[in-house]
């Protein structure tokens, strides 16, 4: 409303008239603007504490908070596998031996993978299930190959899933071996493949 260098009596008078024309009181507005602090003339600091019953008038406030921002792109979707063979990935040496670590437990049962000597590592046999948290609106496929790089193939066997109502069904892949992620209500165990 008032630019720097424009505070001259004729200009102020003109502004006051403009305010009056729209029903506003310029002097009252200035008085309110100047009254920006409470009456603290009676205060005597004899102790320090927080007592909302003795709170003096104030205007405005400030709240500090620390915010940590994770590295990466906001909303980034990262492909993940949570468990293989019923064992959480954190319990499997997936980089070298391909066997469970000593002390490994089953995800569902929390029982040792080797109940007779849980310092021993375990291999996997027969049907190996794969579990992963779903990304709604995305599709996935799983490749397997031998450790020497031979026999690369897609896992396209239908996956047995159980919904939140306890009903079982098979989930089939689409073209190219891609499966649609099912919502947890449709796949309560987050099964994504059978190897």
């Amino acid at each position, binding site marked *: 409303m008032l630019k720097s260098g424009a505070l001259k009596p004729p200009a102020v008078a003109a502004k006051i008239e403009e305010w009056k024309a729209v029903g506003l009181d310029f002097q009252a507005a200035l008085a309110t603007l100047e009254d920006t602090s409470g009456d603290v003339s009676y205060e005597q600091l004899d102790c320090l504490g927080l007592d909302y019953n003795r709170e003096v008038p104030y205007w405005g406030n400030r709240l500090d908070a620390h915010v940590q921002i994770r590295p990466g792109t906001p909303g980034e979707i*990262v*492909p993940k596998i949570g468990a293989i063979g019923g064992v959480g990935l954190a319990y499997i040496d997936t980089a070298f031996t391909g066997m469970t670590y000593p002390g490994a437990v089953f995800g569902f049962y929390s029982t040792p993978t080797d109940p*007779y000597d849980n310092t021993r590592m375990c291999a996997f046999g027969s*049907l190996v299930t794969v579990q992963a948290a779903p990304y709604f609106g*995305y599709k996935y496929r799983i490749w397997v190959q031998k450790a020497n790089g031979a026999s690369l193939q897609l896992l396209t066997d239908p996956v047995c899933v159980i919904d939140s109502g306890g009903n079982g069904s098979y989930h089939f892949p689409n073209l190219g071996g891609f499966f649609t992620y099912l919502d947890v209500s449709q796949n309560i165990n987050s099964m994504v493949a059978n190897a």
Partner: protein
Amino acid sequence: MRLELITFGEPFQGSTPWYRIQMDNTAPSATIIVDGDEYTPGVTITVEFVARDLHFGHFGLSTLPNTITTPSNQPSTATPSNTETSLSGDAWSLNTASPINMRPCGYVIHLEVYDNTIVNSVPGHTMGTLTMPASAC
């Protein structure tokens, strides 16, 4: 194994690293080595057995039947049950006179050998079994 991720529109979103998983679909070996079919009641039979696997779990030796009407003594061995035997076999023995006098009859020596492989993604392991039937009563 590795998992690849795409959107519904099919732009490639990325993949996991290759995860290495060791497979074992070979059953353990179970062998009982005996030196005859018939033994004199009251003797202690001492022979050998083999229980081995690349990923060994445990073994169990038993005598069948072992019921109220036909009780039997159980084989014993110095080999701990969660240790595999030597290639040539470890000794086991069966005292046919203690703690009970086993009746002159046909008995079965049953050997179960388990590996510690996670089979079908659930607790429980691959088993190899061998039974050595004796002659009937």
